[in-house]
């Protein structure tokens, strides 16, 4: 099964220098940015709406619709979310590192479409090299007059600031990101307002989009809405970057249209499992997502809706594959530990509850579990994410707390016996 390359085309064709401005321009780069200045706001927003582009940051919200929510007050800001920190997700990294000008061109288009003159890119703190590459690209764009005053000789001004985060996953949540950018603690803001498009950075209307979302814009302009739609699934247009990791033979980023099945993704695209291993389960959309198991989900179509109906999400596209050597208690404990560690600490249930879950799972894994722990586990989880429903019914401000519940609900649902075996054998039955 072949990839459908759009945002990863250039890096595949020119692996040595896809990040340079020379290569970028030699392969048609910045022509769509120039065009966007001619097209004007309304047509751009319309185009993106028609393209059906869904946000690639995790929530899969229609990008054009988000733009049309932007409040009329000015100044307004554009913020590109490059905080990519979800365990298993590493697609934005590649886009930043290997094709930064594509992002810059996307930023120009998005800025023009939203009448924005100040854009910020918030890059994950640990992404030193991607940030350097991007910074370099921004400087080059300034140098050629594509950013700054009167870009491309028009009378449009656009400033772009690259900002490095300080190592907090929660700053990927868009309102925590804005707080962090403003110099505050990285804590999600209260909702409402539901969208920064109403009140965002410095209290001004703000568009927050993911790196991949923005990187798609030059291609939408080039292909037109129909051309873009045709590439993907009718409901989920364009391509999607899957970061496949775990127990597969060929882990990596794959750019694919929606609509293939999990079987195809895991066994064809990613090369299947190693000799003698069988598939135990996988996480379909990042650490926050409830897990899938072969018996129920292997032949499901990969689309937003099909995944949602099956009780999970595609999220940020991180697919983590686990084979039969995996201790699911241990796997769940590691994921919960991640969320507990990354909780901002505002909400009581997330601050206290995720660590409690981590401790109980840790005890079970070490062989000090009690039968009652399973009930406690489920009830603590229920007090963070009521009914363990999906999408979660949260008792918290943001979805991070409920994210920590996904592995708990998954293993208690599919692997209850394995948990009980840990308890009864006072340790891991797989070891």
């Amino acid at each position, binding site marked *: 099964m072949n990839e459908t390359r759009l945002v990863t085309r250039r890096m595949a064709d020119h692996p040595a220098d896809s990040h340079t401005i020379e290569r970028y321009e030699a392969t048609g780069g910045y022509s769509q940015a120039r065009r966007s200045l001619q097209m004007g706001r309304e047509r751009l927003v319309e185009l993106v709406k028609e393209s059906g582009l869904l946000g690639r940051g995790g929530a899969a919200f229609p990008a054009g619709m988000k733009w049309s929510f932007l409040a009329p007050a000015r100044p307004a800001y554009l913020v590109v979310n490059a905080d990519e920190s979800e365990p298993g997700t590493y697609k934005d990294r590649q886009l930043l590192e290997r094709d930064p000008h594509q992002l810059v061109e996307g930023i120009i288009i998005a800025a023009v479409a939203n009448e924005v003159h100040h854009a910020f890119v918030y890059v994950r703190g640990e992404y030193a090299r991607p940030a350097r590459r991007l910074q370099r690209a921004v400087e080059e764009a300034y140098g050629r007059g594509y950013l700054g005053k009167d870009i491309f000789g028009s009378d449009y001004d656009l400033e772009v600031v690259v900002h490095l985060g300080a190592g907090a996953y929660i700053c990927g949540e868009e309102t925590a990101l804005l707080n962090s950018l403003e110099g505050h603690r990285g804590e999600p803001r*209260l909702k409402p307002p539901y969208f920064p498009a109403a009140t965002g950075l410095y209290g001004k209307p703000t568009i927050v989009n993911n790196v991949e979302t923005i990187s798609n814009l030059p291609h939408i302009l080039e292909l037109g809405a129909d051309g873009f739609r045709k590439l993907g699934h009718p409901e989920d247009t364009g391509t999607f970057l899957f970061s496949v990791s775990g127990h597969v033979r060929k882990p990596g980023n794959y750019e694919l249209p929606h609509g293939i099945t999990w079987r195809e993704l895991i066994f064809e695209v990613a090369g299947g499992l190693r000799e003698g291993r069988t598939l135990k389960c996988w996480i379909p959309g990042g650490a926050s997502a409830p897990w899938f198991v072969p018996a129920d989900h292997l032949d499901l179509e990969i689309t937003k809706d099909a995944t949602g109906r099956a009780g999970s999400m595609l999220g940020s596209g991180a697919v983590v594959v686990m084979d039969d050597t995996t201790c699911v208690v241990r796997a769940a404990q590691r994921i919960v530990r991640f969320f507990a560690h990354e909780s901002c600490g*505002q909400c*009581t249930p997330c*601050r206290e509850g995720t660590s409690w879950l981590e401790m109980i799972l840790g005890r079970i894994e070490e062989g000090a579990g009690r039968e009652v722990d399973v009930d406690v586990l489920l009830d603590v989880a229920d*007090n963070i994410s009521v009914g363990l429903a999906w999408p979660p019914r949260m008792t918290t*401000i943001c979805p991070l707390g409920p994210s920590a519940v996904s592995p708990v609900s998954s293993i208690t649902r599919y692997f209850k016996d394995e948990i009980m075996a840990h308890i009864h054998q006072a340790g891991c039955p797989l070891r």
Partner: protein
Amino acid sequence: MSEHTVRIVVDGRELEVPKGELVIKAAQDNGTYIPRFCWHPRMKPVGMCRMCLVFIDSGRGPMLTTACTTPVADGMKVDTTDPAVKKAQEGILEFLLINHPLDCPVCDRGGECPLQDQTMAYGPGESRFVEEKRHFEKPIPISDLVMLDRERCILCARCTRFSEEVSGDPLIEFLDRGYHTEVNTFPDHPFRSYFSGNTVQICPVGALTATLYRFRARPWDLVAVESTCTHCTAGDRIVIQASQNEILRFLGVDAEATNQGWLSDKCRFGFGYINSDQRLTVPLIRDGDGFREATWGEALDLIAQRLGDVIRTSGPDAVAALGGARGTNEDAYALSKFMRTVVGSNNLDCRMDDTLDAEFLAATVDRALISDIDRAKTILVWGPDLKEEHPTLYLRVRRAAIGSVPGLVSSNSDAHLAAAAGATLVVVHPRATGLDPVADFKLTYRPGSGAELLAQLRAGEGRLAEVRAALAEGPVVALVGRTGSTEDPRLAEAVAAFVRTLPDAKILPLARRANTYGALDMGVAPTLLPGRVSISEETFTAWGDIPRKPGRDCRSILEGALAGDIQALLLVGADPVRDVPDGDLADRALDAVPFLVAVDLFLTDSAGRADVVLPADGFGEKEGTVTNLEGRVQKVNAIVPGAGQSRPDWSILDDLARRMGSSLGFGSAEAIAKEIAEVAPAYRGVTWDVLDWEARDGVVVPGGEGTQPLVYLPADTPGPIIKADLVLHSARTMYDDGVTMRHTPHLHRLAPGAALHVHPDDAARLGLGFRARVVGSSGSATLPVVTDPSLARGVVYVPFNQPGCPPLGSDPRVTVEPA
């Protein structure tokens, strides 16, 4: 349903509630209490504790939602009793308790702890948490006044929000994140805030405790009474708590009209002096260089005889009285009546030559209320640094200037706060003030040149024209007072006169000392009679035949003593040697006067020179009324007995009158209050009954049956412009060497100390080293030098009344030389 209300349903009950109100508040005002920890009605909601989760249905089905962050909307249905709601709330409590040390038996909050109470009401039976609890080093001092126990903290952000939003000194913050989040201060930056005690009061657990109160009492052992704070003139409402006849704690009361629940640390912790073992407990009579103890009878007879002699030989005008602003209105009324009817003299003044004209303070036209600040479009502060001298007014003005309206849902972003429209704030003061960070305009001037600035404000260009334009936007509230002791008191009045030329402007005249307004209203001034009546007003007949010629004010009394015209001087809660800016004059006057009587709590610098010293009851030891800067009359109440044989001022004066063959006719403080309510026109009808039972926020006089015969128009005579190479600004700080502070050691320690603040350029120009000698018009001192680039060049600043520094005089001209 009006345009200002919406209909919602709470637990099946249909309610009509104000638009925009938060669900938690709307429910509470209608009798449904939703449990909460982090929400506080005076701060913006943060939705952190999640305790207030209830079902809210805004048309898309019931969803668990925090009631403290959700504004009501028409048709909204709220369910606070559903089992799922109960389960969520129990879950939150369990989460809060898993790491709570449960050391209630040794916790100050035990017995008055919201966490304890809510656990009883909503909590799970027992804990399922078998893991190791989170540990922190047990209580750590985060300032001289506050201790922090992070293990008890439930991370509700009340303290951090208070210091950021309300007091504006964000010294206490969250550190780290998630499970390891802790409240703490930054290294080398203790929680040194004038308002730190408020965080102790609003902390919902025993995480923040007051050093002073720790382990002193259990809530169920305390007796309490509501009263009015008299550290400054704002009239802040407090609760005084005592155990076994000792005052242990003050709490702020949320009175909308005044302090809205907040107190400065001086108000909250500044009661140590009441319990001091240095209090005067028996009358003293001079005996050579010292004193001997005497009985009341002996002491009062001696005073009666000596006053009688002076009146007989030199006439009643040879007798004078200073003070009366530290007691109650009843005390002040007694002093006023004593001087007028028993002595026959108008030489009395409650002011210490450090404030403004008596008529202006008592009876200016267009007087504002404190709450007018909230609604002002523009606020002008041309007077003392409110943060230092009127701390709760500072909080109120700050809030109005920021424009953050509590109860409004907003994101937790500063920028968002700033976006909510606040009043335009104009601050005029010779140096930096606490309000500067939130001021839209700050005008600085050299002491002595205020009149010049005022003229420019009336007609100047550029920035001054901008300020003038801002002031043209009413409603304007102008808080005017004397910026410091070297400023001509007439300047503030001239500012008020200017304010009156603005459309839609009101004035709050500022005087600082305790019950100054009450004392003026009782006629403790050379030109005033009780109830805002001019001394020449013949319709005031209640006291029979009294002298009608205006008497001497404070300065003139001291000068008279020096000249030999004043033969006997009564100090009633007055310490002119420390309080009068021309300390030198006071010093010599007290030495010169042949007969000096002091009624006081302590043997102050002034009382130490008296011939007879009488011990008086202090705050918390007597009942009465006081009047704040708005003219609001409120009760003060007694909770402990006085020290030793001390008595209230009124009773001392009543006794003295009888021994002088006259009578004031008083039986009790309440009887005096009745007399005031009859004879003082502005106070007509304001009896204790009314204050105790009807008027929750006191009565602003003249109210109801009251009238105000004297209505004063501020004079537009700002005084001369004084220029010199170096000019002195000297102003009070919250903590100083005043008598109550001196006997409240833990606050006295916090006084900034005597120092000469000077611009670095001036320090270099004058060749100043570590110490310098400053010579003022009426005093001099050698002081440590502090360079302060925020000062204008040519201005030096010396904080007033600091340990080790006498007053330097009221003239701005000074000289400074290296020492």
